[in-house]
C-alpha cells in the first residue's frame, strides 16, 4: 500500500526501551514521548473535535492521564494503541457533552455543505477540500478515517483504540469513504 510506506517513514513510534523508561517515571522519557507523539496526537484530536482549543486541552489531559496510568500499561502490547485509546476516551467525553454532535452508528445524512467547504473550494486547494469533506462526517466516521489513512492503523488496532467490533470499524471506514466520494464527485473533485 502506497500510504502505508509513507506513514512508516514519517512517524516514529516509541521503542521498548523508551516505554520502559516511561514506566519508571523518568521525566526525560516523558518529555521525549510528548515530543515524539505531538503531531500525531494533535492531528487526531483536531480531526475529531475540529477546534484547536479543544485539541490543546485534550492533548494535555491525555498526557496527564498517561502519567497517572502508566503503571497499568502492559508493555507486551502496542504503546501507540494504548495512547490513542486514552485519547479516544478523552475525546468522546468531550464530544458527548457537545450539542449537535452525534456519536452513533446509524445512517447519517451528509450536510450539503461542510462548514469550511466553501472557503476551501474558493481557496482551490484539494487537500483543504478533502479535509473539509472529512470534517463534515459524523465524529465516529472522521475518527475511523483518520486512524486508517492518516495513522495507517490496521483494522484490529482501530478496533482496540475505539473499543468497537471489527465489523463496526469496517463499516465506518466504508460508509465514510462512500459519503465522501459522493460528495466530492458531485463537485467533480475526484
Amino acid at each position, binding site marked *: *500500500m*502506497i*500510504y*502505508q510506506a*509513507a*506513514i512508516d517513514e*514519517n512517524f516514529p513510534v516509541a521503542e521498548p526501551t523508551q516505554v520502559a523508561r516511561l514506566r519508571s*517515571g523518568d*521525566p526525560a522519557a*516523558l*518529555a521525549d514521548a*510528548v*515530543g515524539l507523539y*505531538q*503531531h500525531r496526537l*494533535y*492531528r487526531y484530536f*483536531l480531526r475529531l473535535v475540529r477546534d*484547536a482549543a479543544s*485539541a*490543546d486541552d485534550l*492533548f*494535555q489531559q491525555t*498526557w*496527564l492521564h498517561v*502519567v*497517572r496510568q502508566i503503571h497499568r500499561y502492559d508493555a507486551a502490547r502496542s504503546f501507540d494503541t494504548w495512547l490513542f485509546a486514552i485519547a479516544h476516551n478523552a475525546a468522546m467525553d468531550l464530544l458527548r457533552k457537545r450539542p449537535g454532535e452525534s456519536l452513533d452508528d446509524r445512517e447519517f445524512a451528509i450536510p450539503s455543505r461542510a462548514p469550511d467547504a466553501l472557503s476551501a473550494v474558493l481557496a482551490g486547494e*484539494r*487537500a483543504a477540500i*478533502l*479535509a473539509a469533506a*472529512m470534517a463534515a462526517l459524523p465524529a465516529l466516521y472522521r475518527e475511523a*478515517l483518520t486512524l*486508517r*489513512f*492518516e495513522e*495507517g492503523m490496521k*483494522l484490529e488496532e482501530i478496533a482496540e483504540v475505539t473499543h468497537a467490533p471489527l465489523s463496526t470499524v*469496517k463499516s465506518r*471506514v*466504508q*460508509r465514510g*469513504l*462512500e459519503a*465522501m*466520494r459522493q460528495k*466530492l*464527485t458531485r463537485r467533480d473533485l*475526484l
Partner: protein
Amino acid sequence: MSDHESVQQLLALSAAGLLDAGEERLVREHARQCAACAAELEEFAALTAGLSALPLPQPPAYLLAQTSALLAAEADRRQAAFLAGAVAVFALVFVLLIGQTLRTLAGDSAAVVWLGWASITSVLGAASALVLASRRRLERSIV
C-alpha cells in the same frame, strides 16, 4: 445479488486495503470487465490516497511547553504526596517506639498518656498540613 452489485459493496473497502484476498480477487476480476466499477474504484483510490497525504496539522508552538509545565506540576504533587506519606510513617514508628520505651520504664499508664497526647497532636498536625496543601494548590491554580 449479481456480481456487479456485490462488488459495488466492496469497492470502498478495496481502496482502503481492508478486504481479504478472496474478496480482493473478486473485485479485481470484475473491475476488468465492468467500466463502471473500474471508474468507481479509481475514484475511491484517489480519495484514499488523498486522505493519506493530507498535510500534517501543526500543533501550536506553546503546546509542548504548556504540557511540560502541567506534567512537572503533577510530578511535584506526586513527590510531595510521597514525602508526606514517608514522614507520616516515620512519625508513627517513632511515637510507637517511645510508647514502648515508656511502658517498660514507667509502666502502662505513662505509655497511654504519651499515646493520647501524640495522637491529639498528630491529628492537629495532619489537619493543618491538609489546609496548607489545599492553599498551595489554590495559589497555583490562580497563578
